[in-house]
Each structure stands twice: as structure tokens, then as C-alpha cells.
């Protein structure tokens, strides 16, 4: 191997890629923009949607309740609902989102409430639908309030204090430092995005430097130089790796900057981005560095695999049709790693991509299992080395380079 030839190929490919809009877009611009867009944009949009849904006065229907006029009038006077008499098709109206929820008040409810033995009120919603959920929550709060007031009245009638029904309160306080809270909140999504960007960052350079070069007809001239094939492949591979790592670094730096700016601008506890108890969602910088270190072998693995696959293609378009579906292969384990309740164990530590997703999640929330970290780094480095060896081997094959 000649360092000179590897360097010459690398410098040329770097210069060429820096002038390529597609590569700049996938390795620098999108990774830089996506994190602030996610943290700020999606968070803001979500909180706006939720606020708007909360502000809306929901239409509800009451099934029964004709013999409970006091409850009905209290419900109407609360100002929190547009109460309508139930029509026979109230269930379908909820499904069609024309009515958000319904309350079924049993016969003789109000009379029974006075004696303290009222039967259960049944609430109906469309599970998973935001506005229906909010409406049913408000209905639940209304009836819980009604129950508390009835309890207080019954206790007062017997000369007992209202506090007897609630002898103590239960409160929850957070002991986790802000970065741990942030890690838990963002730890699921961040590794997923990092893995995806790591792959996407390598995709365009890999296709351009292999299939693209074949398509442009420059590959033959390049192979006619005295530079060894291994040097050419390593120079090109280094550029693909640069693209992958650049995407990761850009996204991590931009995420760190976004979270820092949010902390500064919003006094450390931004609305909609706070953990339990209003703790700011910051991420431990050591965790970010840990993620960056763990991503290096994955970037090598992705770069080598994408390089090898693209090498088979005769054109950029053909390479796209090979590498496009590979995104799903990458996304699937990354999504599984994002799911709550899946914890690292020795078996999962050797499953590529999933292992990185899981360990990054832990690192960002401040948990450092050094045994697993070593196993994951080692196994991924091994897969990466094998993939790189395969890439070099494929580049030497005549039937791959001159495929007709």
C-alpha cells in the first residue's frame, strides 16, 4: 500500500465531493438542519397542536341523565363542554370525530349520589385520538370533582372533616440530573437518527465514487494508472467514510448547539422540552462523545458495505436501486433499539446496528456498561473490517469492475 496514492485519491475525491451539491446536501446540510428541526420544530409543532386541542371546547353527548338534572346543569355550566343530548348513533358520531366523547349516567344517579351509593358513570372515547382523549380526561376530572364534593358533603353531614377521605397526599420529585433526564427523553430517538444519518451520509459518496465513476467512463482511465487497486479503493473508501462521519458530527454538533441555545434562551427549562418536574432536557457532553466513538466502527461498516454494493452497479441509478432498500435494513434494528423495555444483553450486544442503538441510548442517559461497550465496539469493528476486506476484494474483481 502506498500512502501517497491513497492520499492522492482521497484528496481528489474530497475536492470533487465538496463541489457536489448532492453530497453536500446529504452529508452536511441535512444532518445539520435535521436535529434543530426535530428538537425545536417537531417539538414546537406538537406542543402547538396539543395546546390548540386543549383550548377547543369538545362536543360531548350524555347518554341518560334525564333524572339527574343537577348533574346535567352543572356539566353545562362548567363551560368545558358543548353538551348535546345523545342521539341513537352516538357511538358512530364519536368514531367519525363529530363528537369527542360521551358520558353514560345511570338511572337515578343524582338521587343515589345524595345517599353515597351512586352506580358507576361510564365514559366513552376513541382511544388514540388526541381530542377525544382530552375530552374524556376533562369528563373524568368533572366527575371526580363531583365525587369529591359529594364525599365532602356526606362527611360534613356526619360532622367529619373532608380531609378524612384524603389523609395524605402523594407527590413525585425528580432526583435525576438534567442530563440524565435529557438522555432518557432524547436517548431513544438520538441513536436512531445518528445511525440513519451515518448511513445516509455514506450513501451518496459511495454511489458516486463507484457506479458514478463507471457511468462517467473515468474508471478505466483511473485503473490504467500505476496506482495499486488497493490504494485506489482505500482512497475512495476514506472519502465515503468522511461523508458518513461528517453527517454524524454535523448532527451531533448541531444537536448540542440547539439544546445549549434552548437552555440559554429559555432559562434552562423550555416548555415542551422539560422532563418530569420541569427539568431542562439537556444531554451529557460525555455521552455525545461516547456516541461519536461508538459510531466510528458503524460508519466504517456502512461505508464498506455501501461501497461494495454500489460497486456492482453499472450506473448511479442502478446503485440507488440497490442501496435504497438497504435503508430499511438499517432502520429496522435502529427502531427496535428505540423501543422502551429492550435492554442490552450479551446476545443483543453482537447484533449489528441494534447493539449500537441500545448502547448509545444508555450512554446518553449516563449508564456506562463497559463490558457491553467493549463487546459492541469489538464486534462492530470486526464486522467493519470484514466488510472493508470484501470491498477491496470486490474492487479487484474484473467481473465486478467491467460488468456488462
Amino acid at each position, binding site marked *: 500500500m502506498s500512502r*501517497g*496514492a491513497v492520499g*492522492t*485519491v482521497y484528496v*481528489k475525491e474530497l*475536492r*470533487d465531493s465538496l*463541489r*457536489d451539491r448532492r453530497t453536500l446536501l446529504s452529508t452536511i446540510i441535512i444532518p445539520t438542519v435535521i436535529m434543530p428541526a426535530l428538537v425545536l420544530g417537531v417539538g414546537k409543532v406538537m406542543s402547538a397542536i396539543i395546546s390548540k386541542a386543549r383550548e377547543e371546547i369538545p362536543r360531548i353527548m350524555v347518554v341518560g341523565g334525564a333524572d339527574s338534572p343537577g348533574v346535567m346543569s352543572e356539566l353545562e355550566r362548567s363551560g368545558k363542554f358543548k353538551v348535546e343530548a345523545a342521539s341513537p348513533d352516538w357511538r358512530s358520531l364519536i368514531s367519525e370525530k363529530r363528537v369527542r366523547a360521551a358520558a353514560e349516567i345511570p338511572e337515578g344517579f343524582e338521587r343515589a349520589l345524595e345517599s353515597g351509593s351512586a352506580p358507576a358513570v361510564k365514559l366513552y372515547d376513541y382511544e388514540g385520538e388526541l381530542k377525544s382523549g382530552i375530552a374524556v380526561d376533562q369528563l373524568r376530572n368533572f366527575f371526580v370533582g363531583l365525587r369529591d364534593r359529594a364525599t365532602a358533603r356526606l362527611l360534613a353531614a356526619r360532622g367529619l372533616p373532608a380531609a378524612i377521605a384524603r389523609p395524605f397526599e402523594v407527590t413525585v420529585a425528580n432526583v435525576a440530573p438534567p442530563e440524565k433526564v435529557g438522555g432518557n427523553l432524547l436517548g431513544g430517538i438520538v441513536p436512531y437518527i445518528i445511525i440513519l444519518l451515518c448511513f445516509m451520509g455514506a450513501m451518496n459518496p459511495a454511489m458516486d465514487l463507484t457506479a458514478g465513476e463507471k457511468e*462517467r*467512463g*473515468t474508471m*478505466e*482511465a*483511473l*485503473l*490504467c*494508472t*500505476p*496506482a*495499486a487497486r488497493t490504494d485506489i479503493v482505500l482512497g475512495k473508501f476514506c472519502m465515503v467514510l468522511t461523508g458518513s462521519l461528517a453527517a454524524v458530527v454535523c448532527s451531533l454538533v448541531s444537536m448540542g448547539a440547539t439544546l445549549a441555545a434552548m437552555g440559554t434562551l429559555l432559562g434552562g427549562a423550555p416548555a415542551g422540552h422539560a422532563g418530569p418536574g420541569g427539568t431542562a432536557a439537556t444531554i451529557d457532553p460525555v455521552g455525545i462523545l461516547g456516541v461519536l466513538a461508538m459510531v466510528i466502527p458503524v460508519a466504517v461498516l456502512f461505508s464498506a458495505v455501501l461501497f461494495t454494493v454500489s460497486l456492482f452497479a453499472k450506473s448511479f441509478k442502478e446503485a440507488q436501486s440497490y442501496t435504497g432498500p438497504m435503508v430499511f435494513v438499517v432502520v429496522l434494528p435502529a427502531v427496535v433499539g428505540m423501543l422502551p423495555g429492550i435492554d442490552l444483553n450479551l446476545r443483543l450486544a453482537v447484533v449489528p446496528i441494534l447493539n449500537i442503538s441500545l448502547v448509545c441510548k444508555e450512554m446518553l442517559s449516563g449508564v456506562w456498561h463497559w463490558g457491553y461497550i467493549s463487546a459492541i465496539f469489538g464486534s462492530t469493528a470486526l464486522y467493519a473490517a470484514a466488510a472493508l476486506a470484501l470491498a477491496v476484494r470486490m474492487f479487484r474483481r*474484473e*467481473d465486478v469492475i*467491467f460488468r456488462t
Partner: protein
Amino acid sequence: MIEARLLTKVFHDRKRGEIRGADAISFRVEPGRIYGLLGANGAGKTTTLRLLATLLKPTSGAAVVAGHDVVREPDKVRANVGFLGTSTALYARLTSREMIAYFGRLNGLDEPSLRSRIRLLADELDMHEFLDRRCDKLSTGMKQKTSIARTLVHDPQVMIFDEPTLGLDVMTARSIVRFVRECRGRGKTVIYSTHVMSEAEKLCDVIGIIHGGRLRAEGSLAELRARTGEPDLEECFVKIVAPEGPK
């Protein structure tokens, strides 16, 4: 000098089985001479040239290019070969100067030699005006000159041309033909593949007619005419590759 001895390349195709891209091809080209490899599409011209340029490894046989064996010393062969293929493709986002410099560096030139070679080639090919322009902004003629400069940057002893005028307009094709003649004038060993009879007639000192991977005939234009009894090269060619007449 180029010397091919029973050079053979067998490809394996799942559908078509064994294909002999080059079948026991033997010829010799001396310095200062142009050897024309004349054949129809798929005759084996590109395979033969790729074997000589060490882009492909021969299945059997041997070849010596500029004194180096193509199998044992492929890097030394490539260091002495300039290859200009069918497409004069360039790196669109590099400038003409960057393109030439890249190939110069890969051919082992140091920076001072590279600078002086680029200056010399730019003088000879009249490239100064567009040397720092990106290749995707160049006209066909300018691209052609850049390709030629890229091929010559390391001043190779042997020049391999694989249908270099294919798809080019008359003026650009003429400049290529002129360049090939200049290579001969400078004492370089030249091998030139084409399926254009007039080009072979005008350029080549010796013509090898290749068909089905085999070298069917070889000789000067006069020798081929005498052998077939046909005054026209096209008729000579047809008589040699299809002696029973075209099917």
C-alpha cells in the same frame, strides 16, 4: 514495444457459457509504428487492449509491454502506458488542470515535474485559456485536449487507443488522428483499435484484423490487398472475416 504471444482471455457467462474474448492473439508492435486493430463491434478489440493495459488478466498466453510482463509487472506496464478509451470522460467537477495533475500524481510525478509537464502540454495543445475551467464547462474539443493531456502527462512509451474517435464530430476526430500521428512521430509504440476502415487506411503501418476473438490476418495495407485481391480495405476485411460471403 508491444509483444503479445497467444494472448487469451476467457469469460464465463451464466447464460452464454464460455466466451473467448481474445483467442490466442499474437502480434508485435515496434516503437515509432502504429498497429491498427480492425474489427467489428464485439470482435475482441477492447478485450485485447485491456489485456495489454493490465486492466484484465489473461487466461493464458503472455504479453510484454515496454519491456515489462503484463502479469508479473502490471504496475510497471501501466507506468509506461497511456490509455485513451472510447469515451473521453473527465471528472466534471474538476478543472482541466486538476484533472491532469491527478493523473500525473497517480503516475508518480513529483510536484515540480508535474508543474512543468502541465505547462508543456498546455503549450503544445493550446490549453492555457481553459486550464482552470471546470471540465463540465468545456467544449468537446477542449475536453478532448484535456483527455489527451491526461494520457500524456507521464510521457508514456506506449500509447493505447481504443476507438478514440467513436461518436466525435469530424473536426474533433481529425485532431485525434493528428495526435496519434504525432505520437508515432515521437517514437512511441502505438496500438489503435477501430472499426472505421478509412481511419485504419490513413493511420496504421500494420493492420491486424480481429474477428470472434481471433486475429484473422495481419499485414500492411498493401499486403492485405495482395492477399485478398481486393483494392478496398472494406472488401479485404469482409473477405477475411467472412470468406464464404456475408450471411
